[in-house]
């Protein structure tokens, strides 16, 4: 079995996007899948990921004038907006769950996620915390380099690497236990 930490360190950093500013349509077409996949893994809710992705691009459209390709690639910038949108979503969900708990209403069964993964991997992903899933989404699914991911999450590169390593080990353990 390949060592997970070794595997993570061999992830190649995607070369930084050209400083030429792409048009919004170009950025949307090129990075829509990345934004959606990030949100899908992060939220584990296909419907929510779709809505959040749409909201992300609407917000990006409004703030497109502020985008500076010299400071970050369009993908990183869009992911930053997506993260903000997702956090708002999580907060709203937390408030909703709290209200439901106060009203003693039984919590509805969460819809089965549809990440396009094997059921075993989806179950393992479900057992991870949202923070770990987010890191996996950014570093593995989107193949974002450590610096960009750390900057996006507001943590150090060391913390980013350590947390990813732990998350992948846990994922591996969960899948081994599931066998």
């Amino acid at each position, binding site marked *: 079995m390949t060592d997970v930490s070794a595997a993570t360190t061999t992830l190649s950093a995607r070369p930084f996007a050209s400083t030429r500013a792409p048009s919004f349509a170009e950025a949307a077409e090129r990075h829509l*899948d990345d934004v959606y996949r990030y949100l899908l893994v992060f939220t584990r809710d296909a419907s929510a990921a779709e809505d959040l992705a749409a909201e992300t691009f609407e917000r990006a459209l409004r703030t497109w004038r502020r985008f500076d390709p010299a400071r970050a690639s369009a993908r990183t910038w869009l992911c930053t907006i997506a993260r903000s949108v997702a956090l708002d979503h999580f907060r709203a969900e937390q408030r909703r769950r709290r209200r439901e708990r106060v009203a003693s209403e039984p919590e509805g069964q969460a819809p089965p996620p549809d990440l396009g993964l094997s059921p075993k991997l989806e179950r393992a992903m479900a057992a991870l*915390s*949202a923070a770990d899933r987010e890191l996996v989404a950014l570093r593995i699914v989107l193949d974002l380099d450590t610096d960009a991911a750390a900057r996006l999450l507001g943590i150090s590169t060391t913390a980013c690497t350590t947390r990813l390593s732990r998350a992948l080990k846990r994922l591996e353990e969960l899948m081994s236990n599931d066998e």
Partner: protein
Amino acid sequence: MTSDAILAELRGTRGAPDTLRERVLALPEPEPRVSRSLPRLDFRRFALVAAPAVLALGLGAAALHGVVNGGSGSRPVAVDGNPPAWELAPNVTQSASGGGAAYGALGLKAAPQALSSLPPSSTRLNRYEAWLRVQVADDRLSSATTRAMQIARAYGGYVALVDMNTPGNKGTASLVLRVPVTRVEDAVLRLGKLGEVKAQRVRIQDLTRQANVLRRQIVALQATIAKLERRLAAGGVSPDERLRLQYQLDEAKRTLAQKTKTRAGTVREGTLATVSLAFSTPQAAVVAPHRAGRLERTARDAGAFLVRELAWLLYAVIVLAPIALLAAALVFGIRTGRRRSEQRLLAQP
């Protein structure tokens, strides 16, 4: 399942559905971006450039200030607070003052042979005050002081005050001598010969008019007293009138005594001159400031300007530091709170 397989499968997470793609691609193209006329400032890079620039600017301003102002020599000031002796112009001015004429100060250059004195008037009553600063050799301070006292007594005067401070052979001595005005000119000349006269000041104030006014008042009071005494002695005065006359007589006598005493003091003032003498050894004497060259003055002015700049900077730091600290603490607190809130939010599956 191997790690590679997990990673490969994760990378194969499905992409955006067509409905989302259509929805996003249907968004209108935003207005064209306005190109930034100025590059965005990176704080670290800015600080890296700004700090040396500010330092260079401060040093440059100090150097410029030194070059511009260094050429004009600054006014030397003696260490004892008095204007330096070489700056005292030898002038004698006369102005009306109170009861008589007042003569201005006489200053002399620091040359022993320059000693001179203003002769007091032989026909009028003068208040004569002289001040001398004399430099003597290290081992001659004590003997010069003794000699000065002897001179005062020799001219019929006395020593009002002696204050001598002699750590080793060096030191200072201050004397206040009272010498008859009629002989003060000679006394001053002899006192000046005890050493090297570094500075001299003479002040003469005419007291004749003041003394004459007092004399007239005394004569008038004496006449009043004689008249009152005659009326009291004549008799035929009612008890009340007698009491009133007696009170007036007592009051006139009291005023006469006071005026007589004042006039005696004035006459004494005009009889005895006050000579203040300050002896010092070369080390203790006021040293003329070194006349700095242009380069030295430039460097000194630049240094002084730099010190002022540092003082302003320090002041600004003292004033702004608490505000900056509070702002930093606020920002740090907000960021920490937000991060913890996010951590709690994302800690759940």
